[in-house]
């Protein structure tokens, strides 16, 4: 799981162009939206594309993103349980 969490952090930094953010500065349990990384709605769509492209997970209901993208750890656990790639 720790390996997946690190990989996920690196991918998020890359696809969301978080230029000044390092993997070690993202807390595993910190919220991705709002006070945490401060991501916006376009970032949420980008995360949905990342899930499908990299892990083969198609999020049929984008509204579920709210719970899945709660934190890096929650997202990693969801990917671990549902990945097809």
């Amino acid at each position, binding site marked *: 799981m720790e390996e997946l969490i690190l990989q996920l952090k690196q991918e998020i930094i890359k*696809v*969301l*162009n*978080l*230029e*000044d953010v390092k993997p070690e500065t993202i807390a595993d349990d910190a919220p991705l939206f709002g006070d945490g990384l*401060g991501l916006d709605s*376009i*970032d949420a*769509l*980008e995360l949905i*594309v990342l899930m*499908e*492209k990299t892990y083969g997970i198609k999020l049929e209901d984008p509204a579920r993103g709210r719970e899945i993208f709660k934190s890096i750890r929650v997202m990693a656990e969801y990917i671990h349980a549902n990945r097809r790639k």
Partner: protein
Amino acid sequence: MPQSIKRYSYITDRLALVDGKTLPVAAAEATEEGNFLTLLYRSLGIDYPKFFKMDSLSKLGFLASELILKDESPRFTPREDVAVVCLNRSSSLSTDVQHQASIQHEDSCYPSPSVFVYTLPNIVAGEIAIRNKLLGETSFYVCREWSAQLLLRMASLSFCDACTRAVLAAWVERFDGVSEAFMMLVERDGLSGIPFSAEHVEMLYQNTKTQNT
């Protein structure tokens, strides 16, 4: 009182000028396309993470406006009397091509939402307005080629709105190896500055462009 140009900036992928003076940004350090804009961003000490999410066209326009507005006071207070008017030749083609490439093959069709949002040129004007809380008119016109006369005409139209006191008027072009932003802060009642005429706009543009060759 005639309108006048208070300040102007010019940016390419290897140099930046304000009021005709070159900024000391080391272009030699820019090893990849677009790196110069990042170096320029950092040299200005700006803290605006959204910059890194912008496409290159918006980065050009954004930095051109930063060069002009960085010493304005007050900044970041809502202004309904400042408009943003931009022109270019290639619209958002540089990003359109990138988006097209991502949807070219059916078996690997993963369009990026963050790329797609920049497939309209007027996003440039929007980014500048959002950053500076400018609530006046924002517009972007696509034309055949650089035209001082057209830029003058479109910016002058903004002054037809009685509440408009200033206009950020710009040429922001990026496609096919060309990266160029030329921006002016034009004031309705400027007490000093360069007269806002087609002749002066053409002269400023050509003079700054010459420094790039």
